[in-house]
């Protein structure tokens, strides 16, 4: 192993390593993600049909979707779903529920405080941290634009 530089090797590895099938993954993600959104919309419409107010309707829809995500995770269905759909099932709120529930299941053996308690947000944590941070930034921009 004397004749090759790291750069050359990196180039060679790239040739041999197949990329993920981006186009098919995107199509799958588009349809599955879209279906989850349609499902959310159906729940929302049904809640309106039941005569629930606009504010409560949105909140209830989110809660129902999260419940579905957690349940499907517990029954070992969401992981299979995710293997097929990728970002399509990871980006919607059901995916967020899956990230939290899967961590809770995984680290239950290490106890309720140190296990579940600390690891619960090991995957969802970045979403929360940067979600809150970006809403703070957007808030500031909004505030300044109002003054101007």
């Amino acid at each position, binding site marked *: 192993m004397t004749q090759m530089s*790291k750069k050359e090797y990196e180039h060679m590895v790239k040739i*041999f390593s197949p990329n*993920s099938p981006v186009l098919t993954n995107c199509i799958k993600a588009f349809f599955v993600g879209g279906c989850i959104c349609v499902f959310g919309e159906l729940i929302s419409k049904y809640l309106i049909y039941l005569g629930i107010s606009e504010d409560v309707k949105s909140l209830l829809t989110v809660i129902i979707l999260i419940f579905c995500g957690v349940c499907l995770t*517990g029954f070992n269905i969401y*992981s299979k779903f995710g293997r097929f759909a990728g970002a399509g099932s990871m980006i919607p709120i059901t995916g967020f529920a899956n990230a939290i529930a899967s961590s809770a299941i995984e680290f239950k*053996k290490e106890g309720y405080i140190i296990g579940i308690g600390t690891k619960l947000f090991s995957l969802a944590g970045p979403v929360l941290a940067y979600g809150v941070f970006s809403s703070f930034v957007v808030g500031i921009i909004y505030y300044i634009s109002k003054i101007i």
Partner: protein
Amino acid sequence: MANIGKQTIKFKKNISILETASIVGPKEGDGPLKNYFDIVLEDIMAGENTWEKAESIIVRKSLELATKKAKLAMTDIDYIIAGDLLNQNTGSTFGIRDLHRPFIGIFSACSAMGLSMGLGATFLESNFAKNVLASSSSHFCAAEKQFRFPLELGSQRPPTSTTTVTGCGVALLSNDNSDLPKIKAITTGKIVDMGITDPFNMGAAMAPAALDTIITHFNDLNIEPDYYDLIITGDLGHIGSEIILTLSKKEGYLLKNYKDCGILIYDKDTQDTHSGGSGCACAGTTFAGYLYKKMIEKEIKKLLFVPTGALLSPLSVLQKESIPGIAHAVAIEI
């Protein structure tokens, strides 16, 4: 014993592989090698309540099985040399703690089987032991938990990724004059790091190390690749294997008789294992189950067994370190 060349030890005594034992999980039991393993578990938890405990019970049962098959008692074993992937080698140590035998825990990532067999052979050659158990183990779920994501997380794996083998392979080494496969030489590998940083492409990280060890072995012993009936690496997988074959051609070696345990252990088309199998148990169980039996049947008479390891940790990956590769060669003949 003689040091030959740069990294090779050639043994003068008869260092026989008296027996082997292999226990694997359900997925490996569905694979092409299913008929060669001693025990295929129906339950990946092995009746325990954590994956880590499951791995340890698999280790203990495999060690006991190898000893029993050789009609020895555990008290006849002078040393147990074992390695696994879990933090602080707990997969091995917790399995061995009730066996009350002198224990040498090793870490060499997925190349553990090569190192444990090599160390065991040197103990026997130097007369410091009569019977040594060499073992390596891994568990898919425990490895995922430690190195990757929770099992229930709905994520996709890239095509270059491999699947950790659940199981344990054991070789019982002994000074014995009978007509059994014998360890003739070992070449202990050195770390080769070609700058690969993708933990989902470990075959690419390890292939240069494997080739380095194999070429050093040929040069040290002054032999050609076709001396062996089979040269088999541990867990380079489909992508790593293509890379090593191309690299070897560039270095002027034609490895016609080359295979990889990570390719043999799973069916690529039906088992959704992407680039193949990996983990300490990949080389361990393939040797203890498949290769040893093929040697006993004399289908393979000269084998160069080269388990491969990617010496990364979850922290080193996050800190953007490249992945050092290693491979240890064990030359076995019957």
